[in-house]
């Protein structure tokens, strides 16, 4: 998978878009329920959520295509309530790309410059520059309908960026592309965003895409923001079971909580006791029954002769899924009926284990997340 590290980037913190308690109804349907969110200058921000959760609606509210029932949207500290879409410092890449079919590629890209005071030569130069930026140098004279899906998307990008907006809004821009093209465009979008330094807001229902591309991600369910964090925290410390389930694979085991001398101890079925730090569970979680989650890669199968560096548990392998570079093992832990999934990187010279093998598992308390 193409992965560009976003970890060492300077995290911008100046709020560019401020959303204050936004509510929106479609008839009786409550599409957005009290969204409060800050998006920072120069940030690659993603709105992630299942189909119908209100991502597009929120994006269109920012763009000015949809009104709101209550709340406020501020861009650069200016209230957008009375500013129509054509006067907002935002531009949009539509899910269908919305390329004007009756115009050439250059006319499409230069569409936004019609009212600018630039000379004809300056406009042509700007169009050529925008086309080069998206890798379509020399395509200007083509008819817009004679383009492939990936090319149409690049035209849509160039067209939206030529006005140098403060915010670029992208509604599932990669969903119409095949997998290879999608991965290539993910990398290109990240590169483009760094190059132009404009705030990008990306709508997607693909959690992997959001993790790869974003500085921060807001996970939405049913018109509400469930969690807004950077990809690593979102993946490692989801705040609810639902977020945990939506992003990647998460194993869940029942546990009982009790506190001992000020620290919380979880007695996890099949694994044993673990100390839980404050960032691993919601504040004020009650004692008693709880659910503990952990990612497949945080557990390690121990081979003969290996000793656990962390804690150890025993189980039997009930399923093996071989992926070439990785193998997924479903392991039934002692005393737990539902198997847990463990992923292991395949190493040369080490056999893949078989179904029915007894195995030992190494785990660490720090990898757990606790849900009420």
């Amino acid at each position, binding site marked *: 998978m193409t992965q560009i590290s976003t970890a060492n980037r300077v995290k911008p913190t100046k709020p560019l878009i401020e959303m204050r308690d936004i509510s929106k109804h479609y008839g009786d349907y409550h599409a957005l329920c009290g969204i409060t969110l800050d998006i920072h200058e120069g940030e690659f921000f993603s709105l992630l959520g299942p189909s119908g959760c209100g991502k597009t609606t929120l994006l269109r509210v920012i*763009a000015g*295509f949809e009104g709101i029932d209550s709340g406020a949207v501020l861009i650069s500290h200016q209230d957008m309530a009375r500013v*129509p*879409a*054509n*006067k907002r410092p*935002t*531009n*949009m890449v*539509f*899910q*269908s790309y*919305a390329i*004007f*079919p*009756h115009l050439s590629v250059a006319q499409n890209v230069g*569409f*936004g410059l*019609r*009212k600018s005071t630039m000379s004809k030569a300056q406009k042509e130069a700007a169009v050529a520059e925008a086309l080069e930026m998206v890798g379509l140098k020399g395509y200007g004279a083509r*008819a*817009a*309908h*004679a383009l492939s899906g990936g090319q149409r998307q690049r035209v849509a990008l160039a*067209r*939206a960026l030529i*006005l140098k907006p403060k915010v670029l809004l992208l509604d599932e821009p990669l969903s119409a592309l095949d997998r290879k093209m999608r991965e290539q465009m993910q990398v290109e979008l990240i590169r483009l965003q760094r190059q132009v330094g404009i705030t990008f807001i990306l709508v997607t229902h693909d959690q992997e895409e959001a993790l790869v591309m974003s500085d921060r991600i807001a996970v939405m369910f049913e018109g509400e923001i469930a969690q807004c964090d950077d990809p690593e925290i979102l993946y490692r410390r989801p705040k609810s079971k639902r977020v945990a389930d939506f992003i990647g694979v998460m194993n869940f085991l029942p546990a009982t909580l009790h506190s001992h001398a000020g620290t919380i101890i979880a007695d996890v079925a099949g694994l044993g006791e673990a100390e839980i730090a404050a960032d691993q569970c919601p504040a004020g979680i009650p004692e008693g029954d709880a659910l503990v989650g952990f990612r497949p890669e945080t557990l390690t199968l121990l081979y003969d002769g290996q000793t656990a560096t962390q804690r150890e548990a025993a189980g039997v392998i009930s399923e093996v899924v071989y992926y070439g570079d990785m193998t997924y093992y479903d392991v039934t832990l002692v005393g737990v009926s539902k198997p847990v999934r463990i992923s292991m990187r395949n190493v040369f010279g080490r056999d893949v284990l078989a179904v029915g093998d007894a195995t030992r598992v190494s785990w660490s308390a720090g990898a757990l997340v606790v849900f009420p």
Partner: protein
Amino acid sequence: MKGLKLYAILYLIFLYAPIFLLPLFAFNSSTIIAFPLQSFTTQWFSALADIPEMHKAVLNSLRIAATSAVLATSFGIFAAMASTRYRFPAQKGLMGFIMLPLVLPEIIVAVSLLVVIVNAGFSTGAWSVIAGHTLICTPFAIAILQSAFASLDPALEEAAFDLGETPASTFRLVTLPLVMPGIISALLISFTISMDEFIIAFFLTGADPTLPVYLFSMLRFPKLLPAVMALGTLLVLASVVLLTIAEYFRRRGIKRAGAKDTGGFL
């Protein structure tokens, strides 16, 4: 299979025989419209030049048809936009109501319009025929334009608006060029309907008859019948040319939009 083939042939003969008979008798030297044919002549066509009332009727019809077509198409654009771009209460009912003239008998429209006009103290004339024809053409224009607007991705208009255009310039730069094939179709269909229409014109035309009304009055003079045939031939020719032009624009529109061609006249 053989039966089907025979059926198709008979069907085509039934459809086109009257149209092929027109030029046959238009070029026949006998004044009597009957077989056997006599010698070839173009005298009926030259005779057309000497009937000034007919010229007046043709001009009158052209004027009325052009005006009605423009009016009906303009109304059609507004109605089609209202029904495809906006949501408002009682929308379905209202649209159904606008489409009503499609199924209303023309004689009813004609008589009621006449009653209204006479009672209001106005005199009939070209303007009242235009009013009647606009009324019956508008539903056709709406039906054609509705499908043109419905097949236009609303995101295209939003994209133009997003790029700084006003609603008016968005309409001019994006909407209008993309629905142009629909507009041309609506204009041509309305024009043709108005050119053909007899009943409303008969009741409301006043002192200046339209072409169908004039032709009807000429049937009383058998001597002029071959000239009518000649005129009919010219009209058929004009229709074919018109349809070809319409089809050319429609295909060009589709090609420019890069869509797949489905349907069409020719």
